[in-house]
């Protein structure tokens, strides 16, 4: 590891010396430190860390001179925070790269992030909140031979923790902006794209044929006409069976996915409708490995990303193996001066999303079994997640601003968290949120957030035989409420107190308060925050990709800085 670090530093320094002799380049970077202490808390199931304190930190340094850029990221996990994969362990420079552009050709060597289309067949990205970083290590070329035509190709291996997965990826993508290509100044704009990616992984199997080169392709179309925007993409992946010896588990079915969205917006009004379907589209950087670190494609979620804690208590994880989803959004701003708009106007956002399974599951093919689900099937299928919510945002006067949300969610906890039906069941939640900000005087404001969640069981498991209410195998978490107060002294200080209370837990010993205290200080490019509190065990998602977060009790410290 030390040799790798030294090598990376030498390469970076050499690059900088070569390209910065006239000293006209620029350095940019940022630093982030997250530290957390962990202590035992039997009631919430939190476990102390042997190390007492765990820490993740990152330092990015980028140097740019003209069309040349180089940089690296130092990462330190001593040891990784409890909600991270334990494979993140130690220090290193897992990300380093050099890029230059000349005559329309951009060449990158080293690490890079890349996405083809919306990511249905390939997405290499970093999401620190989820502990995901599947950066590629290899070579990438981008070239624009004509105005409005963009080509890129790459080859590389995908990062997993501090090493790289077995699979070698080769990809190519082309995009044509019809209007630019033909210098056509019409109101309607069209962009066409296509991509292909192939994973090579050497494999032998005593019993079954295993494809060593697994290819996937996608095509996409984007049409823009005034405020109207349509985007559609279709993807296909050839058979990609796991390297097993269990005959009944071998699946040689190909995969496919599509996503369609149409949006319309004008001043004060917007509407969007989206639909997607994924069937057998889990694509991994190593066919033999499991876990989110090895996912190399991305099916965006079709549920609204909520910021309020109780609205995000039961989030929807995208099922790349098979799901059908739809989402509708309406935004409307009532004009100032009207009866409902008042002096400042009122904003409404209605959102509906629904995700269900494919009929009789995803495609399956082997010597004994063949199944292909219907293309579109909604009503009779197993419901995974549904969210109906209305958000109203209102500035009442110069001092008071308010945001209200009412939502009704359905969360198939058994399916989405991998339990047997009847362990936790299908949860129905009605959630109310009131968020009011009040400016006391210049630079001083207070924000109060009140949330409540009423939970009920939507399926009848009384015949199931479990030991808890409604025949469940596990006790229901039941109802929650949250009260939060935040005091901000602009531009430097903020203080927050939050109490999350699980007053409806079926297990009375678990009717607990999860209290969190936080304080922060910003000055210039630096930000410091410190907190103490208890966190509930749960699922945390970003864009449909989720991770399990264990319960914890302890202090946390965050320092971030940029230059």
């Amino acid at each position, binding site marked *: 590891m030390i040799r790798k670090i030294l090598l990376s530093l030498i390469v970076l320094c050499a690059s900088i010396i070569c390209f910065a002799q006239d000293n006209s380049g620029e350095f940019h970077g940022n630093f982030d430190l997250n530290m957390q202490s962990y202590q035992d808390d039997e009631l919430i199931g939190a476990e102390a860390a042997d190390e007492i304190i765990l820490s993740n930190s990152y330092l990015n340094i980028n140097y740019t001179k003209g069309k040349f850029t180089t940089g690296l990221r130092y990462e330190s996990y001593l040891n990784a925070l409890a909600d991270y994969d334990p494979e993140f362990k130690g220090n290193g420079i897992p990300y380093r790269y050099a890029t230059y552009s000349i005559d329309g050709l951009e060449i990158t060597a080293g690490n890079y992030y890349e996405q083809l289309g919306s990511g249905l067949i390939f997405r290499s990205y970093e999401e620190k909140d989820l502990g995901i970083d599947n950066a590629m290590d290899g070579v990438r070329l981008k070239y624009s031979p004509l105005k409005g035509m963009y080509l890129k190709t790459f080859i590389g291996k995908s990062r997993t923790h501090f090493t790289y997965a077995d699979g070698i990826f080769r990809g190519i993508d082309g995009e044509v902006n019809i209007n630019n290509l033909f210098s056509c100044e019409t109101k309607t704009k069209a962009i066409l794209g296509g991509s*292909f990616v192939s994973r090579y992984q050497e494999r032998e199997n005593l019993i079954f044929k295993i494809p060593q080169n697994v*290819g996937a392709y996608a095509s996409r179309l984007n049409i823009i006409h005034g405020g109207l925007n349509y985007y559609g993409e279709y993807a296909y992946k050839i058979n990609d069976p796991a390297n097993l*010896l269990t005959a009944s588990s071998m699946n040689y079915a190909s995969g496919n996915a599509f996503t369609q969205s149409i949006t319309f917006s004008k001043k004060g009004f917007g509407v969007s409708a989206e639909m997607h379907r994924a069937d057998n589209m889990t694509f991994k950087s190593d*066919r*033999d490995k499991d876990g989110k670190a090895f996912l190399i494609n991305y099916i965006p979620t079709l549920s609204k990303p909520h910021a309020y804690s109780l609205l995000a208590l039961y989030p929807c994880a995208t099922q790349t193996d098979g799901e059908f989803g739809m989402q509708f959004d309406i935004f409307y701003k009532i004009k100032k001066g009207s009866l409902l708009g008042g002096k400042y106007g009122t904003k409404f956002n209605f959102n509906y999303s629904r995700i269900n399974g494919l009929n009789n599951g995803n495609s399956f093919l082997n010597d004994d079994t063949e199944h292909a689900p219907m293309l579109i099937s909604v009503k009779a299928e197993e419901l995974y997640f549904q969210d109906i919510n209305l958000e109203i945002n209102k500035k009442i006067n110069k001092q008071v601003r308010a945001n209200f949300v009412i939502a009704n969610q359905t969360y198939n906890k058994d399916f989405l968290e991998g339990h047997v039906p009847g*362990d936790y069941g299908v949860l129905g939640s009605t959630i109310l949120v009131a968020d009011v900000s009040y400016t006391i005087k210049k630079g001083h404001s207070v924000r109060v957030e009140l949330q409540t969640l009423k939970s009920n069981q939507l399926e009848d498991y009384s015949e199931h035989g479990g*030991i808890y209410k409604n025949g469940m*195998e596990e006790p229901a978490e039941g109802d929650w409420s949250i009260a939060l107060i935040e005091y901000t002294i602009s531009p430097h200080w903020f203080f927050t107190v939050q109490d999350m209370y699980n007053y409806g837990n079926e297990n009375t010993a678990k009717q607990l308060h999860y209290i969190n205290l936080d304080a922060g200080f910003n000055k210039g490019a630096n930000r410091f925050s410190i907190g103490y509190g208890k966190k509930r065990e749960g699922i945390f998602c970003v864009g449909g990709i989720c991770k399990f977060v264990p319960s914890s009790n302890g202090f946390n410290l965050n320092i971030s800085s940029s230059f």
Partner: protein
Amino acid sequence: MRKYITLLSIILIITSCDVEEGPFINNYDSYVNPDKKVLIEDFTGHKCPNCPDAARELDAIHDIYGDQIIGMALHVTKSFARPNPIGNSFDYDFRTNWGDDWDAFYGISDAGLPRGMINRIGYQDESHKLGKDEWATTVANELKKEIDFKIYISSDETSIFITSEVQNNINADYNLVVCLTESNIINWQKDGGNNIENYEHNHVLRTVLIDQELSNSTNYVAGQQIEKIINYDLTTLAQFNIDYSTNTAEMGNGNAGGWDANNMSVVAYIYNTTTKEIAQVEEALLIN
């Protein structure tokens, strides 16, 4: 023009992929050392819905290689292996002191269940925690290895006799571990979307009788035989697990007895104390 030719070449190179068409059965012949045996430690839990898939994969591997594959199921973690209160479904506690210790030492369940170790290889570079999809390849590679030891097991109702025969001159530290496992245990198991009442639990770790130095010397000579005699009493051993479940295991209920000697096997293995790699393993029925 050269740029276009280059790009076209790249397209042609990468557009190759291997679409497999049925029948999907392969006829692959591979060298296997007939004396090499492999221990698959399957970390599992009766409340783990995906774990039976791993057990089935272990069975499939066993079907191919026969008795060269020795399985051991270790029920671990509070989430997946805790029992319900006695009198309900899932009220048996399969956990053992040794299973929990090995899980903590090797960090298996931290990576998610089901997961296992194949002869505990990869411990030093932390590649020992294998998902079930990795087992077949790892086993195939492992079975190609030469052996340094052969193990012979015999037993009667009170004692187990282990003879370790050294095959090559070696200088290293080895330990000998002798365990008892039990098969044909009919009890509850989550399996995918179902709770199975009559699931057959096989090669479940019951107890570890010894984990001690194979020899007090690190020099082993080809042809050398090392003998161990281990006396055992199943009632005492079962009571130890009952006490462990009652007093130590998280949310245990003491329901860990009811062993059936007729379904028990002796599993003995020799491992390198530095690399943790299991050099050889053997299995025999406790009551012949």
